[in-house]
């Protein structure tokens, strides 16, 4: 039987490999075992997918996803409710790296199709993923590759593929590629374009299609990363994926997203990894597995570095909102304004499907400013105040089952535990006990007990500690 340490470790895993879990789910997963749960998370295809027919019946905008807010609402729903938690988390991971923004594309459905590729292939081989990305109409349009012609090469896609999507500008103080490599990369991708789209008027937009126009491709030798040949785009992807820099880049991103906050990406050329040992293990697995992301994640989640990295990361806004909603447990059935939680994510600085630039969102402490912190606190506290929500009632019920009387300390510890093992600084604990709970003992059968629990939960999620994962 799982003990409390097992359950708290499981809470950590589910916050990182998913969007948190209710205490009941933590108990069940802990009983199954840590490594077994990791394997389950790594194989989402073996879990049932969400049945969307009832949601689509009521959320009429979800069927074709022609609007940004429909997409945002839909994705939030998936993050909160999908049994395939890591599938949604890896989708968010790649979305923050392979950025495409609705502000330019204006076709949210096209970005949804890209996200579906991240769901389906985001834990597969990295070279395959880059090929999906290189033929993705949303990405090609976002980075202007349809404007790249053999007589007038546009280097936007070629440059970002190297700088932001696969290798990074440098590592260990050295540059990873030269300006000539950027040019060769861009030349190799000439002719990778998009079929002419059906305009949105009068009947709405349709999905675009990738098109390879061989007549607009530079059919000549190019020297890329030291190799010379008549390279096309797929050759470039092949050459990129065998670079040590690519292994480092993928490893650091995985570490930064799943383990602990690293410096922002532009600093990686001159800033060594925070955990060189784990990064090295991930790099090795990248090559040993044939660039397999699932294999790298297995190494990562089973490492001591990961297990010991509790609360070493600032939650991103999706984690704040979806993690809170998964505890509250009241975002399953359709109702008007179902997009509200997605708006909250936006207000906290993460406008899903619409990152600020191709560089994506800056992470870690940069998520927090005086405005977004207020949004975080208000949202989480508001949700914890919903005493009719099943998740809150479950917490109250579990605490009440611990005896007719519960000490103030016990109540606070119980709330922290049932939220997923949060730990408060001593000053905060003392403040809560002296000012909020007041009584040294509480009667769990009293009329006001549920409200006392709810108020304490509200205080806890308003703390600095709740902002960390």
């Amino acid at each position: 039987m799982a003990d409390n340490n097992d359950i708290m470790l499981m809470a950590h895993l589910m916050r990182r490999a998913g969007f948190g879990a209710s205490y009941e789910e933590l108990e069940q997963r802990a009983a199954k075992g840590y490594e077994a749960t990791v394997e389950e998370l790594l194989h989402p295809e073996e879990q049932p997918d969400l049945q969307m027919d009832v949601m689509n019946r009521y959320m009429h905008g979800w069927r074709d996803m022609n609007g940004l807010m429909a997409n945002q609402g839909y994705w939030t729903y998936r993050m909160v409710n999908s049994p395939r938690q890591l599938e949604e988390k890896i989708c968010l991971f790649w979305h923050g790296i392979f950025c495409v923004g609705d502000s330019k594309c204006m076709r949210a459905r096209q970005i949804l199709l890209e996200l579906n590729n991240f769901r389906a292939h985001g834990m597969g081989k990295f070279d395959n993923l880059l090929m999906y990305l290189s033929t993705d109409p949303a990405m090609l349009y976002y980075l202007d590759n349809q404007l790249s012609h053999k007589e007038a090469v546009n280097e936007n896609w070629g440059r970002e593929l190297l700088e932001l999507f696969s290798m990074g500008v440098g590592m260990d103080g050295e540059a990873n590629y030269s300006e000539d490599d950027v040019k060769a990369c861009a030349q190799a991708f000439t002719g990778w374009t998009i079929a002419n789209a059906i305009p949105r008027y009068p009947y709405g937009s349709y999905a675009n299609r990738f098109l390879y126009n061989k007549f607009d491709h530079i059919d000549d030798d190019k020297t890329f990363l030291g190799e010379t040949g008549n390279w096309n785009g797929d050759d470039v992807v092949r050459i990129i994926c065998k670079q040590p820099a690519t292994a480092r880049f993928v490893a650091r991103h995985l570490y930064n997203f799943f383990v602990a906050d690293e410096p922002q990406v532009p600093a990686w050329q001159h800033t060594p990894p925070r955990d060189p040992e784990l990064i090295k293990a991930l790099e090795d697995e990248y090559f040993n597995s044939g660039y397999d992301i699932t294999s790298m994640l297995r190494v990562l989640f089973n490492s001591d570095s990961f297990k010991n990295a509790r609360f070493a990361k600032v939650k991103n806004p999706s984690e704040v909102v979806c993690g809170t909603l998964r505890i509250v447990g009241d975002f399953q059935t359709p109702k008007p304004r179902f997009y509200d939680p997605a708006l909250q994510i936006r207000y906290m600085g993460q406008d899903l499907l619409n990152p600020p630039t191709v560089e994506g969102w800056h992470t870690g402490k940069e998520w927090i400013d005086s405005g977004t912190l207020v949004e975080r606190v208000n949202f989480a506290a508001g949700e914890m105040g919903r005493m009719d929500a099943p998740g809150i009632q479950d917490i109250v019920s579990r605490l009440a089952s611990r005896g007719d009387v519960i000490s103030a300390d016990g109540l606070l510890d119980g709330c922290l535990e049932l939220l997923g093992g949060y730990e408060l600084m001593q000053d905060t604990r003392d403040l809560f006990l002296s000012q909020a709970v007041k009584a040294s003992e509480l009667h769990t059968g009293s009329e006001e007990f549920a409200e006392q629990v709810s108020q304490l939960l509200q205080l806890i999620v308003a703390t600095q500690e709740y902002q960390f994962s």
Partner: protein
Amino acid sequence: MTTQVQGVTYRYTHTIGRGEEAGPGFKNPVSVARGEDNILYVVNRAYDYRADSKRITVCTVDEEYIGEIGNGGRLGGELMDTGENASDGSLVWPTDIALDSEENLYITDEWLNRVAIFAKDGDWLGSWGVAGDGEGQFNQPSGIHFDADGNVVLVDTGNNRVQKYTKDGQYISSFGSYGDGDGQFNMPWGIDIDQEGNIYIADWRNDRIQKFDAYGNFLMKAGSTGNGEGEFKRPTGVAVDKDGIIYVTDWDNDRVQVLDSNGLFITFIMGDATLSKWGITKLDANPDMKLQREIAQGLERERFLRGPIGIEIDEDDRLFIVDSQRNRIQIYRKIPPYFVGMYDGARL
């Protein structure tokens, strides 16, 4: 385009509509009713984040715009009226429409759990409905239709039953329960009533339609889950013509199925949409898009139905298919069968 099968012929006539948040056009239309003088009342479900688009568009079969009725309880586009005290004229989740003998509009609202009533000139006449699962209560009303006696028959989706009320909301009777047996439902949606008073229900999550007599006695069922002939994937709307032919919007299969009066498959209608009058007007005002259309690849996709929901056939055998995801109505006409009796180039 002409579809001719088993002595029944459907000729596509034209498309009306375009995607529009207000004025001439539709936004996620879900239902249509035909009034006198070729007037159409089209229910726009729209999105909650554009609640100002929730409305009834009034136009003619020939696409002359007349006006709008109702609103989404709007305040700056945000959906505000989601509670029990929704204001007059509010539409939160409008779903289906029926006209009484005076052409007043009865509109089911599956969030507010009420039937909203408007005069044809747009005046608010009131509403009725009590949320719940008891007698005379309903939970998420969807399909609505008047019977020959002027009573309202509506589909009580959440309670998996069909209920009959007087037009001012007095409960009369009900039938049905949850399940997949004969006379049972799983989230039923659309409804129609034939000339004999028989009731047809789109049994949405059971992927079938069912036919009952006027008293709710089970008569027939048709369909099973799938995408083949006579199979459905979440059928939404149902209509019956004066010859007993049944039309079903096969929502998640993006098509309409035509069945004979015994429920046997006759044909599919996949869509033949062409540019509507309003669409042409829009393109004339946006020359860039006109140019884009001229060079667009895969434009043939535009004609197909996408998420059809509502369907109606009038006394002139005109079939109105509410092509929800494409913000338009595709109109066909059923014409008498013709037999030309010759084949190419042959002389008898």
